[in-house]
């Protein structure tokens, strides 16, 4: 049984405005699934449907075997969601907000205060513990939002852009908490448009674009699936740059070669492991000296570009 399963899931906000189109999607138990996509790709809509906040227009969605439309209250008992925008009671202090949430979600009374204090310290909210929610900074409010899920420790945890507005130090703490939650047995769904976050957290990544699933696989497989995904940066000492460029472009496995200034070249190749020996042989025969070689792998940005033809961040501003 999957922890989460959707079949033919569609959400329409108006006759023409589709947020999700016939989405088939699964998450295994105890898996961290990352939804990757630009703004407006349907990530938040999917999360809100799974959290039973939104109703689907058609199709079917299950969480832990429970239909989200037929048994929403039961589903809500199993999950916790951290919203994209922090949702807090304006005139409450962080600890009050967490205490309320812990109470409503059934966290045992004797554990609450210790858990809340530890979280406030770990997420660096301790100094802001006496501020009202409305006086918190964007980053503090966001950390408090994710803290709600950490205090609840649900079987199914949903995070919508958990580290947006949070500094790098804060991001790492939140990522560590998310992974700790997974270690304890939770199934986790994270929506993000941050490549680094996806790479750090994901067991698998689902790429969404315009409400449709484009591809779903592990980060490694997604990167490997790109032809020309490996990038080899070269510096070659040669008097005839044009000839070398032509020779390099004829090597088997070369997808694209470009001269990035003077004697520097950037080669997009299918597989760096087999391409580099051929390249050294060609250079030797053409009496060109290799000064440096640097092999890099594609990022999830490249994966998104490869599968959708669009850059992940072009409409995120």
């Amino acid at each position: 049984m999957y922890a989460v399963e959707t079949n033919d899931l569609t959400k329409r906000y108006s006759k023409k405005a589709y947020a999700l189109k016939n989405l088939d999607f699964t998450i295994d138990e105890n898996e961290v699934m990352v939804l990757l996509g630009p703004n407006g790709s349907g990530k938040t809509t999917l999360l809100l449907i799974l959290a039973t906040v939104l109703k689907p227009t058609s199709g079917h969605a299950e969480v832990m075997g429970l239909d989200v439309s037929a048994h929403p209250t039961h589903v809500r008992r199993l999950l916790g969601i951290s919203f994209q925008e922090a949702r807090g009671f304006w005139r409450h202090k962080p600890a009050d907000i967490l205490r309320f949430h812990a109470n409503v979600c059934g966290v045992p009374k004797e554990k609450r205060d210790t858990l809340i204090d530890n979280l406030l310290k770990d997420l660096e909210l301790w100094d802001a513990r006496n501020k009202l929610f409305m006086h918190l900074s964007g980053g503090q409010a966001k950390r408090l939002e994710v803290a709600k899920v950490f205090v609840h420790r649900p079987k199914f945890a949903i995070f919508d852009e958990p580290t947006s507005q949070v500094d790098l130090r804060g991001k790492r703490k939140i990522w560590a908490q998310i992974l700790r939650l997974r270690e304890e047995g939770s199934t986790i769904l994270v929506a993000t448009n941050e490549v680094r976050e996806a790479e750090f957290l994901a067991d698998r990544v689902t790429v969404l674009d315009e409400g449709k699933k484009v591809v779903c696989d592990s980060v490694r497989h997604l990167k490997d699936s790109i032809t020309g995904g490996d990038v080899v940066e070269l510096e070659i000492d040669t008097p005839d740059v044009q000839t070398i460029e032509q020779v390099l472009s004829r090597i088997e496995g070369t997808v694209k070669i470009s001269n990035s200034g003077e004697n520097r070249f950037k080669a997009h190749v299918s597989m760096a492991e087999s391409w580099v020996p051929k390249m050294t042989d060609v250079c030797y025969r053409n009496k060109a000296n290799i000064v440096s070689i640097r092999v890099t792998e594609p990022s999830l940005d490249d994966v998104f570009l490869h599968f959708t033809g669009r850059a992940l961040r072009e409409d995120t501003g």
Partner: protein
Amino acid sequence: MSEIRVVLALARNDFSYFFRTKWLMAILLSLNLSDMLVVAFVYNGIMKIDYLIIFIPGIIIMGLFAASLDTGRRIWLALREGVIQYELSLPVQTHGVVVAYLLAGGAAALVYASSLMVIALIVLPASAIWSAFMLLPFLFILAMGLAGIAATLAAIASTHGEFFFAFQNIVQMALLTLSTVYYPLEEIQKFLPPLLVTVVAANPLSLATEALRQYTFNGAPIELSLLANIFLTSSLFAIVGGFAYLGALRQIRVKGKL
């Protein structure tokens, strides 16, 4: 945690929210006290009738009314700030959220009106103080009904704050003007047509004010028919308001917004 406990936790949270808005409490209290301790005494000197016994119970009901209507402001804030989405994600059914807000609105208004009543009892000693306790459950139902109206206004106004406050003022003007809060029914009959007089007489604010005047401050024996009328008219408000708010929340579940 059972669903009832979640509803009560939500209600307690909203109840505390009312008292956290200290500036609002200060304004409300100062307005009500100035009415009670200044306006009522001045008018009492001007008018032929005993205006204190007319107006002081009226102010208690006005306080109840204003505090109940604050539920709408809190709901409007929850809608505007997206807190409502958070509440819809909690392990409770949609109508549980509605009930929680009505309970909190009723309880907050009752506590506020009770504090006014304590002050009023200093100014105008009660003839039958126990009747005040008898009236409290009915005032609670009335406050829930008014909170229901406020919830409806908040849902209609959606995220447009100016609409909400405009609607609130219109309702306030209509319900208070067409009531016996400021004047006894005998005086109103001289100026308004019979149809409106019927409306004034059936207004739950009039009924509650009359009950306070007659039973608590005049010491008249309690009539069950008047209490039943308060219960029925207030329940009607609460039911209509509750369903309107429920409709708004269901629309949020479908459209993602109002």
